[in-house]
């Protein structure tokens, strides 16, 4: 049972001055599942996500990835362990082509990064992998256009592709559908699900829109005011009264249920 846990946070806590954004959150993520963290605005989801991904230093607590403490690892090391991260704000190389974006992502964990003279196109394995991933996320048509010229939805797909290129075991995704048109959301969610199923990957998803994750998640943790309010399978969460009141305004006056 213990071997099944790929990512674990132990009493993770983050304080900003007097504000406790994340209060001793402990979550265990099982391998090969989609685990979502949901919660209303200001629940501390993104802060928690940044603690997991290493962008923020926790006040106390630890993050364990496959039995290894990664709490204080430098940001670039985390990628080498097999963790891919994407953030709420689209984070790509704007003036490079889609292909080059993904190619750089697949080159990152290779052994050719300090070769000065040889043309990068000679290292075909990275380009090959890049095309594979671009195909997977459905951007083949746009492989040679500049990343900045893509519509927003495609940019998010590109970002997903950049995370997938090094073939990570764990994907940390912070609101992958942020800012997308409503009709594009199911497409990207299906994509995430397909990726997870086909590659035996674990996905940890932070979402604020409940409906989006209900259908694809294996487990859901509900966050509220920096704490875990409830945990369980989607159906358990859906019938949980505390969660309903948190979303519907009993505990928190936010009408974010869409």
């Amino acid at each position, binding site marked *: 049972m213990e071997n099944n846990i790929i990512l674990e946070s132990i009493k993770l806590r983050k304080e900003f001055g007097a504000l406790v954004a994340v209060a001793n959150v402990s979550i265990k993520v099982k391998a090969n599942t989609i685990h979502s963290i949901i919660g209303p605005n200001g629940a501390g989801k993104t802060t928690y996500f940044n603690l997991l991904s290493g962008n923020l230093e926790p006040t106390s607590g630890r993050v364990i990835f496959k039995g290894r403490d990664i709490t204080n690892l*430098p*940001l*670039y*090391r*985390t*990628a*080498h362990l097999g963790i891919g*991260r994407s953030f709420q704000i689209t*984070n*790509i*190389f*704007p*003036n*490079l082509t889609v*292909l*080059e974006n993904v*190619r*750089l*992502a697949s*080159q*990152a*964990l290779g052994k*050719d*990064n*300090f*070769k*000065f*003279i*040889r*043309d*990068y*196109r*000679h*290292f075909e394995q990275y*380009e090959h992998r890049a*095309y*594979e991933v*671009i*195909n*997977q996320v459905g951007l*083949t048509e746009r*492989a*040679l256009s500049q990343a900045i010229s893509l519509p927003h939805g495609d940019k998010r797909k590109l970002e997903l592709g*950049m995370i997938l290129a*090094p073939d990570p075991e764990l994907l940390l995704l912070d609101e992958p559908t942020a800012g997308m048109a409503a009709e594009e959301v199911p497409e990207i969610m299906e994509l995430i699900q397909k990726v997870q199923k086909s590659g035996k990957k674990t996905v940890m998803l932070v979402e604020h829109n409940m409906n989006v994750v209900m259908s694809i998640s294996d487990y859901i943790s509900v966050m509220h005011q920096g704490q875990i309010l409830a945990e369980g399978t989607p159906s358990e969460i859906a019938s949980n009264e505390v969660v309903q009141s948190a979303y519907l305004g009993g505990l928190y006056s936010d009408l974010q249920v869409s």
Partner: protein
Amino acid sequence: MSEFTAPEVAKENIYWATIKNSRGLLITILLLAILPFIIALVDGQPFSELLSNDPGQSKFYQALMIEIFILAVYAISYDLIFGITGMISFGHAMFFGVGAYVTGIMFKSFGWSLLPTIGLVILAGIVNALIFGIVLPRVKGITWALVTLGIAEVFFIVIQSRELVDFAGAEIGLQGVTPPEYLNPVTERLRFYYLAMIFMILVYIFYKRFVNSPTGRVCIANRENENRAIMLGYNTFWYKLTALIISSVTAGLAGALHAIFHPIIRPDIAGLSFTIAALLMVLIGGVGTLSGALIGAATFRLLSFGLDRYLGGSSQIIIGIVYVGIVLYLPFGIVGTWNQRSVRRKEGREQLLRMFTGSKEKKQDENEE
């Protein structure tokens, strides 16, 4: 899903593409190589006189071109850290100044010959880059720029200090450097011309290859979005340091050439204004284009040469206006704007072709219908 096809463009033979894209470079090399002879022809100077370095128009313009070659190497080294890797440095003149002063002092005060001096210049360049790079993990962007400014200003003050007057010549500059006989800029100017030209071209080719290498691509990624590069698993510090070392060594070598070429090494070449000159040359030519730095350097030097000659002291005003004009109307620099419009030029040419040949095809189409 597993089946995919790479677009044809990507599969094009890399070697062939390189040769095709190097046409401009080859033409430039050829033109520069015969330039002294062309000027001699125009001037009516026999080639025998030219080859024995007799005074004349050709010799005069060779000196100007040598200055451009040195400036071009200096500018391209700035483009590597500014335009490619995306770091703004305000201390770049120090890279150049260290090379020039190390060469001058070693020649004059210690009587070193050329090769060990060049070795020392390279070593000094690496040390210099390490000094600049030591703070890189801590500060970024404009803060780093100010740190580099501080370091470079310290060097600028040190070389002008009274205590070092015997070595560096204080604010007057380093005088009395005797270059090796076979590289004497006066008696062996033509040889110096070709040496500087080859040096510039080798640097350009090396830079071009570096930018297109896996390491260089990561430098570009660093410019585009450093956080993303880190998240992908690149420790950007090493890439920035690599770019700094390459840049510092080449700028130092350009400085060494400068020290051999000029009778006086003035402290100005280590000052902020010379860094700004590098920035200007890169901006004129096109940021991050490499060849733009060379064209920018030529424009920069020729503009001030031409205007100084005809307008004298007031030329600075005109030069300033020209720069404002360039920044306003060519915001991506000469090469950058050219590249950007090349797509549209291509479309225009095709349209023109269609106007002449396309009308026939149209008629055929109609006939078929």
